[in-house]
């Protein structure tokens, strides 16, 4: 079986499959991308909600504290009592309109914690404190210039840290030794300010209390929502995810959700909080395998199923075509065998006919002419036609063998010119009848190893063509010569010739240059093909030589090759 058709069939199946697969994957990718964007949007919504809760907590803490601070008397005793009872503050302070602390006053006797507060908040009192006493000045980032210099690069004045659109009014935030310090501040009617230092840990504890825990977070989860987007049927119980709150160093302050990564990792989505906790961040993590991977599987499964069914259909179709093709091939092969057998069967009776025709001619001899002058002509026709038929059969058998036994030829020593002459003699009578005169100029009189049958067949085919097609030809010139290892035989007639662009085409099997009936020529269309094949098998070639109005075939036969092979 030939590989060509099989490959073609495979290609026919694989190509659409690959195409469909490629498109399908692209579609799946697009869908995944859409899903990812939806997921991101959902997560951002959730994180935004969490950030809002935290903002509400910080805002209400400030509002409550300021209300309470404005309520109490502003003497040290009252303020101390306030600190003792207020869980959200570490320390309370009172400033004059210039920003100098009145309480805790550095010069007054202070408790240890009050003294520590003055040290902690030192950047607030030191340096060139802004002297403006208007509410506006302090409601911006107050005392900003005073805070920056002593703090150095770690200083994070409230103004340059606060994003646009967020209220920074009434907060003072700075970071020292990666610890965040948060103060609330309010201007007093009579000038000066009152404020409090927030207890960070308490603020965090309150925020944690506001945020969902792992149990209540199930209703807060993004994953089930996402999964329900794809299919309502399968919501896996292990939809694991994590929301986390981190400080400026990335340390996790609080987390909820069932995903518990041990290694540090990049968040899927993250955002920072609003002022004053804008150095803290919220983040969302999911395991690498989910939910993206899960969605991908779901998209891919129908795709794979579709591809598989298309593939199966194509394969069935391919199988059918393949079977048909094979049946045709077998039938054709059978036909060829049949033709071969018939040809073979024809060969023997034809040989007998020829033999007996010759015998009859010999036997009757000249007597026949006396009896019937036309009888001799009839006998000649029988001999000619049987010879022609014999050549035809030889051609058919040679052609049917052309793919089977290449390079097979039988070399024997002989004189080339003798073979040429005997072949010419066979054609001479019929040619002369058509007014064509064969002329032979031979120079190969030495014995050489070659295949006389092949040479005879090639020459026969060429001369047969002359006879058939070269109408109006006066003579056909045949020349033979030896050049180095090659024998060159030229066959040239002065017939109509062959157009330049068709000169290679004549060698193709079943090719006839003219289908015109009036040509009166008949043939199988394999003569030149066989002739060239035989020449090539003989290590030579058969080509057409360019000429104006002549058909000039040049045959070369390699004797050296033949000789070598003959010796071996």
């Amino acid at each position, binding site marked *: 079986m030939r590989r060509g058709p099989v490959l073609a069939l495979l290609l026919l199946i694989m190509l659409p499959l690959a195409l469909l697969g490629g498109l399908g994957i692209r579609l799946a990718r697009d869908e995944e991308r859409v899903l990812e964007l939806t997921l991101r949007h959902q997560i951002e919504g959730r994180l935004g909600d969490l950030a809002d809760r935290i903002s509400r907590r910080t805002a209400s803490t400030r509002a409550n504290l300021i209300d309470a601070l404005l309520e109490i008397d502003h003497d040290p005793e009252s303020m101390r009592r306030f600190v003792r009872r207020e869980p959200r503050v*570490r320390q309370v302070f009172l400033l004059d309109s210039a920003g100098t602390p009145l309480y805790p006053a550095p010069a007054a006797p202070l408790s240890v914690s009050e003294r520590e507060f003055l040290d902690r908040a030192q950047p607030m009192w030191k340096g060139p404190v802004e002297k403006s006493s208007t509410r506006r000045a302090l409601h911006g980032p107050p005392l900003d210039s005073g805070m920056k210099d002593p703090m150095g690069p770690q200083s994070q004045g409230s103004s340059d840290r606060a994003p646009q659109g967020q209220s920074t009014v009434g907060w003072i935030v700075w970071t020292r030794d990666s610890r965040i310090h948060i103060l609330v501040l309010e201007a007093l009617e009579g000038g000066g300010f009152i404020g409090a230092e927030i207890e*960070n*840990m308490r603020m965090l504890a309150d925020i944690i209390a506001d945020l969902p825990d792992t149990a209540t977070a199930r209703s807060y989860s993004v994953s089930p929502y996402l999964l329900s987007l794809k299919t309502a049927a399968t919501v896996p119980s292990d939809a694991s995810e994590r929301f986390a709150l981190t400080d400026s160093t990335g340390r996790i302050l*609080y987390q909820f959700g069932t995903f518990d990564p041990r290694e540090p990792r990049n968040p899927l989505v993250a955002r920072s909080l609003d002022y004053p906790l804008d150095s803290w961040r919220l983040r969302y993590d999911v395991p690498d395998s989910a939910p993206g991977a899960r969605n991908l599987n779901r998209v891919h499964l129908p795709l794979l199923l579709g591809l598989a069914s298309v593939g199966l259909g194509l394969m069935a179709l391919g199988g059918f075509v393949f079977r048909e093709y094979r049946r045709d091939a077998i039938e054709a092969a059978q036909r060829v065998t049949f033709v071969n057998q018939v040809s073979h069967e024809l060969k023997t009776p034809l040989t007998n006919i020829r033999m007996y025709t010759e015998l009859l001619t010999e036997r009757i001899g000249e007597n026949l002419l006396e009896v019937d002058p036309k009888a001799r002509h009839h006998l000649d026709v029988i001999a000619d036609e049987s010879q022609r038929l014999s050549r035809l059969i030889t051609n058919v058998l040679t052609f049917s063998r052309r793919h089977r036994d290449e390079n097979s030829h039988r070399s024997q020593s002989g004189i080339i010119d003798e073979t040429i002459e005997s072949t010419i003699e066979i054609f001479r009578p019929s040619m002369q009848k058509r007014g064509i005169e064969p002329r032979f100029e031979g120079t190969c009189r030495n014995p050489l190893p070659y295949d006389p049958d092949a040479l005879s067949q090639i020459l026969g085919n060429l001369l047969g063509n002359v006879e058939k097609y070269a109408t109006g030809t006066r003579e056909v010139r045949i020349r033979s010569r030896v050049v180095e290892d090659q024998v060159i035989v030229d066959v040239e007639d002065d017939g109509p010739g062959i157009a330049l662009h068709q000169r290679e085409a004549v060698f193709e099997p079943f090719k006839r240059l003219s289908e015109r009936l009036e040509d009166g020529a008949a043939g199988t269309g394999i003569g030149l093909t066989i002739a060239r094949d035989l020449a090539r098998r003989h290590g030579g070639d058969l080509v057409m030589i360019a000429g104006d109005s002549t058909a000039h075939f040049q045959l070369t036969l390699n004797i050296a090759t033949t000789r070598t092979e003959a010796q071996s």
Partner: protein
Amino acid sequence: MYRISHTPGILMTVMGLALIPFTGEGTNASPNGPQVRLDAGFSNPVLTSGTSQKTFVKVGVTGFELARASDRAPVNIALVLDTSGSMSGEKITRAKEAAQMAIERLSVNDIVSVVTYNSTAEVLVPATRLTDKASIVAAIESLQAEGSTALFAGVSKGAAELRKFKKDDRVNRIVLLSDGQANIGPNTANELGALGQSLIKEGISVTTLGLGLDYNEDLMAKLAIKSDGNHAFVEKAQELAKFFKLEFGDVLSAVAQEVAIKVEFADGVRPLRALGREVEIFEKSAFALINQLYSSHEKYLLLEVDVDSQVPGTKKLGQVTVTYMNLQTQKTDTLVSDLSVRFTESTEEVASNVDNEVSSLAVKQIATSTNDEALKLRDDGKVEEAQKLLEENYNYLMLNATKLNDKDLEKLGQSQADQSVQIEDATNWGYMRKTMRKWQQKQTQDSRY
């Protein structure tokens, strides 16, 4: 920093003086129902005149006796349980048993919530009246141990649950169990201490039970001390039930809470420092908060004061005001007591009038802070110096035990001698460190266990 080598000297000087004993004004039974007893006095009720000197002031408050157990105040308890991976096995089983047993002791007026924490915190049982014990017990039974230790989140959530039913006449308490290092969220002793300090301002104490040898004793002790809760070193899981029992014994016998003690001094008297319990000290006053007083149990604060030279005669050096929530009468009561001292020229009189009890307490607290210094030295790898300091502490306690005729001091001294030997072994240091932290907490907070 007060050096141990100086302190005994001062005490000796102080005890060398003598005057008549001073008894603080106290009330126990009154028409308004049972009252907390206030007991304020100096280690030397009689001081030498004509010279400035240092002495100790003790303000003690003793809970009245709870007549019947059924009279106890309702409690509002949040059990915050560690369910991290290290708790798996016997620890979690014992913890569940102990928690369930504790729940069984509570009654229908009490409120309980259960928060668990591992990698995340989870409110297992939101704060609820104890009408359905079985379901709470079942919820506790379902606990499994896995994951990390988000201790801060657990305490935060526990506090939030407490606040839902927080009332002045309920005993509010977080009982925190942990066997490991807090590794999610804030995890230093200072951070948890700050949270504890905030919680006590609203009357919430955190009792910390450290289980096994892997918990962070600094963090657990500080959280307890700052929030005026108890702290326990539970070496083995089998002991958990015992410590839950002790803790609930405390909580269920509370008779007064939010005990605010204010000491105001007259001119010429300056508070220098507090020994033991944390006290806020101002120029002429001191302030302390004790979260709960238990039946017939005394808690106290101890101040070292500087007294200027005085002429002979009795003089009022200050006044103590105590306000507290009486859990029996559910009223806020106020107790007032004067701090008076008699000045004399007679050194014999000063020497014969030493208040042994106050002096003992002062010795005890000084020894406790010395113990903490020894712990720090041992932390720095200075084993020999730490051992030497503990031996000095032993000598100091023994000397005063004899002088003051106090068997307790003798016991404490013996424990210092033991510790001095035991801290040498590096493999045993984890255990000893926890033991010492617990020991210190018990002395400073005057815990019952």
